[in-house]
């Protein structure tokens, strides 16, 4: 090894140190809190416990919220796949303007998502635009209550995270060799048969990558349920906020956070094992 690459390699240490102190250590602290009984500062005497995790499974309240968060995130992910597949396919295979259109799709993504969520609040409220349209066209007689329900939360999440699904899907479909589809057609497959046997199967990588990018932030969302949701749409993020900032039970809050972090890290590692993590961002446009 020569001096250039040795010197170059030394460049990575400041960032690694930063990463360790401000990212890994805090996760370690959360880990300690989850398994102990009280605060680690002010010289409290601390003992080990599994109670913080057991409470999650003992109290029906928390199990319901856990299940609901999973349900909301899964519905969000499924709809974002359904909504973005035709777009990704069109961009990758049917148009020459795909690059500029991808840039346009990403514009809302760069506008703060609180603002986009606010827009949905305007759309969905009882005398909001959506109800007005439905009333004047005569589709409904009474205004429907969507705001402050789970439906509103799911609509907001789908709107916010669908671009994250379009990108990896577009990148994988783009790479599918059109001659494969033609070969399938020549060998007697119908248009739909060729689509499902070739295009769809080869785009599964993109679907998984997109699922990672939609499911994880949806599961950890906190602002969208707080703004668009009501009492029936409290999610994990809201529980964690409540425990840490209002109730002040850091050990229990940490256990919930650790569960969320652990689940997302497990998903990420599982994905990187199978597909390689860089495939998510290899063709990323911004």
């Amino acid at each position: 090894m020569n001096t250039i690459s040795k010197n170059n390699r030394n460049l990575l240490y400041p960032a690694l140190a930063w990463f360790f102190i401000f990212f890994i250590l805090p996760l370690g602290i959360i880990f300690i809190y989850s398994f102990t009984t009280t605060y680690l500062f002010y010289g409290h005497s601390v003992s080990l416990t599994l109670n913080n995790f057991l409470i999650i499974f003992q109290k029906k309240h928390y199990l319901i919220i856990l299940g609901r968060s999973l349900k909301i995130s899964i519905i969000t992910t499924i709809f974002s796949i359904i909504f973005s597949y035709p777009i990704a396919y069109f961009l990758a295979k049917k148009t020459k303007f795909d690059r500029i259109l991808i840039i346009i799709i990403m514009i809302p993504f760069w506008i703060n998502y609180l603002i986009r969520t606010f827009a949905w609040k305007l759309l969905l409220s009882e005398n909001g635009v959506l109800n007005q349209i439905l009333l004047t066209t005569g589709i409904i007689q009474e205004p429907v209550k969507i705001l402050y329900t789970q439906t509103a939360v799911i609509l907001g999440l789908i709107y916010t995270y669908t671009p994250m699904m379009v990108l990896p899907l577009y990148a994988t479909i783009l790479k599918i060799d059109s001659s494969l589809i033609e070969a399938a057609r020549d060998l007697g497959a119908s248009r739909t048969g060729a689509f499902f046997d070739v295009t769809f199967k080869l785009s599964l990588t993109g679907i998984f990558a997109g699922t990672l990018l939609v499911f994880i932030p949806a599961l950890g969302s906190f602002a969208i349920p707080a703004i668009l949701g009501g009492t029936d749409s409290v999610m994990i993020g809201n529980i964690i906020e409540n425990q840490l900032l209002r109730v002040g039970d850091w050990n229990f809050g940490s256990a919930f956070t650790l569960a969320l972090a652990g689940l997302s890290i497990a998903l990420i590692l599982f994905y990187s094992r199978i597909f390689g993590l860089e495939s998510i961002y290899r063709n990323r446009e911004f």
Partner: protein
Amino acid sequence: MQSKKPVFLTIYTIIFFIYIFAPIILIFIFAFNKGEGYNFPLQGFTWKWFEEFFKDATAVKSIRNSLIIALISATISTILGTALTLGLVKAAIKFKTALLTFLLLPVLMPSLTIGISALVFFRTINIPLGIPVVILSHVSISMSYVFLIMMGRIEGITLEIQEAAVDLGATWFQSIKDIIFPVLLPAVLAGWLFSFMISWNEFIATYFLIGTEVTLPIYIFSQLRFGISPKVNVISVLITLFTFLVIAVLFSTRNIYSRFKRI
């Protein structure tokens, strides 16, 4: 393949783009509407909400704080992230794949977990919450994004030029300053803008770490929680215009870069 015109797909695409932009257009419309309520018919054009917004001292302060945080954290994370990529891209070290995966975790994990763990960490070691702590945490998030961008753009050729320079008598420091840095400048600029936008938009981690201070997303959230006011429309319009500007700059750096590559 292009034989049949994809009528259905084209219509779907148009609807999709309307779906994406309609909410934002709606915000724009109501920012200039005279009435307090958010429904049609509109009641005439006004600048009233803009005046009210700029009279709101908290709002103006939140913009200033957000700018300070984004400028500082983008600068630190660009320096660290660029150095990290330079060091890592050619290095032969054990567990490199595992290390790469770990370095990407801040991008993929929910920012809620990052914010909470930072909150618990800083409170435990007795560091007061506030703007400095927010900057520290933003850097550890956006550094990973810089790393991602730079990984895509540092190509083998860059380091070969560096070797050539050193063979011709340059010191290592000169080779970084005169060769690597100018070649990477467009990517560095893109990374900086990217981190700036990450920090500028970051809400969840900030919410837990900001203490009693206020940033723009925090301000918007507090406005949204306690009812809605057209002032939020105003800030949305301003942010959207600002975002268009940043995107335009980001893409012009990309064009400079691709021209560079062709030479």
